[in-house]
């Protein structure tokens, strides 16, 4: 049976992890490769690297990082952040990334999804969608949720799936950072609406939230950052609890 995935997300700037991490055994807390290896050996099903570097030099560092990660770890990983062209994706995939995640570029130029799916296959194209509720309506936002668009979440999700996205990474800006649980209602609607896997993001605070996102939110995978980085939740413990709750999990 296909299992639900647990995905730690690492924020990268100039080739280094930026959000604080709290691993006592880390020699270098800013080294994403070392952190990735620890996660890979401790039950993570996949990893996401989100690059928040804006400079040209920083992008080159990212490519070097992707090569280092691909040579070191034996589980799949996705790279996102600032990807806006077929060329960007080609370089990342050729460097060893398994999947890429595109966000703003897809909103600005939806045709990019078709182009990427045709050239590289849907299986490696993740479309990330950031949204929050405005007057009761879920609207897509850009730039980490700062810039609202008039696009409705569910319309956009349908469109990206039709254009050839292989997965949707949905972040609720209303839930992100709150540690009060995932946006399960919206996630369940998404999961029924499109026939591609949904990765839930935003709101993880405790282990029960993951059970809820898989049962109530019908998510296929759950992504989180700080609860893992600060060791508030150990992935193996989390997976044991999920399995006790009858959720299919790889242990």
């Amino acid at each position: 049976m296909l299992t639900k995935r647990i995905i730690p997300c690492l924020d990268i700037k100039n080739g280094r992890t930026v959000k604080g991490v709290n691993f006592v055994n880390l020699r270098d807390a800013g080294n994403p490769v070392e952190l990735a290896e620890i996660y890979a050996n401790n039950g993570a099903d996949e990893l996401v690297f989100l690059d928040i570097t804006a400079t040209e030099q920083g992008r080159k560092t990212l490519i070097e990082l992707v090569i280092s990660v691909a040579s070191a770890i034996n589980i799949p990983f996705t790279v996102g952040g600032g990807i806006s062209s077929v060329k960007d994706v080609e370089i990342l995939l050729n460097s060893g990334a398994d999947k890429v995640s595109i966000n703003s570029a897809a909103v600005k130029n939806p045709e990019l999804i078709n182009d990427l799916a045709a050239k590289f296959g849907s299986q490696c194209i993740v479309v990330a969608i950031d949204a929050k509720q405005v007057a009761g309506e879920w609207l897509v936002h850009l730039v980490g949720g700062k810039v609202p668009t008039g696009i409705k979440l569910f319309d956009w999700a349908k469109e990206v799936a039709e254009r050839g996205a292989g997965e949707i990474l949905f972040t609720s800006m209303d839930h992100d950072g709150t540690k009060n649980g995932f946006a399960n209602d919206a996630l369940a609607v998404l999961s029924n609406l499109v026939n591609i896997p949904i990765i839930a993001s935003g709101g993880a605070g405790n282990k029960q939230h993951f059970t809820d996102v898989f049962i109530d939110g019908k998510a296929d995978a759950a992504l989180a950052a700080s609860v893992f980085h600060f060791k508030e939740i150990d992935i193996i413990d989390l997976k044991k609890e999920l399995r006790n709750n009858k959720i299919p999990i790889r242990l």
Partner: protein
Amino acid sequence: MKIVIINYGAGNIQSIKFAFQRLGYDAVLSDNYEEIRTADKVIFPGVGEASSAMKKLKSKGLDKLIPNLKQPVLGICLGMQLMCNHCEEGDTHGLGIFDADVIKFNKDVKVPQIGWNQIENLKSDLFKGVNEKEYMYLVHSYYVPLNNEAIAVTDYELKYASALQKNNFYGVQFHPEKSGTVGAEILKNFLKL
């Protein structure tokens, strides 16, 4: 040992090269006829769309070479699918090594299947020392129905062949290079065949 990964422009082959590197082997990426023919072990990778991958293979004349190879050959993901008779994706005629047709998952399940699923009914030396129901990483929209050449079975609402073998030809739908330590074990087994 000379390991050649067929480089025909279809997909993420660095990951496979890195996986062998972790096992202590330096695999060569090549589209050269002689280099592939004289290798001790051949990896036939592939991700992406079937008909365009097959076109690339043909443009390099490799469609004639692969079915005639005598050494152990391992097709991975789309590589395995192209070793079959026919792929529904792009109505693609395959290499005809495995007597199977590749068809699309129906809409009862999410397509593509992405993630870790179990392999069972393991039948080949490829899986020596690998426990039944181990988890492998899979990413695919098309599958090979159960058949006589199946050496592993996976369940995604229906049971299908997740690995095939015929003589010196092996195919796996999953990605051993991305499937943790068990995946590495399978690659190691392949090198011992």
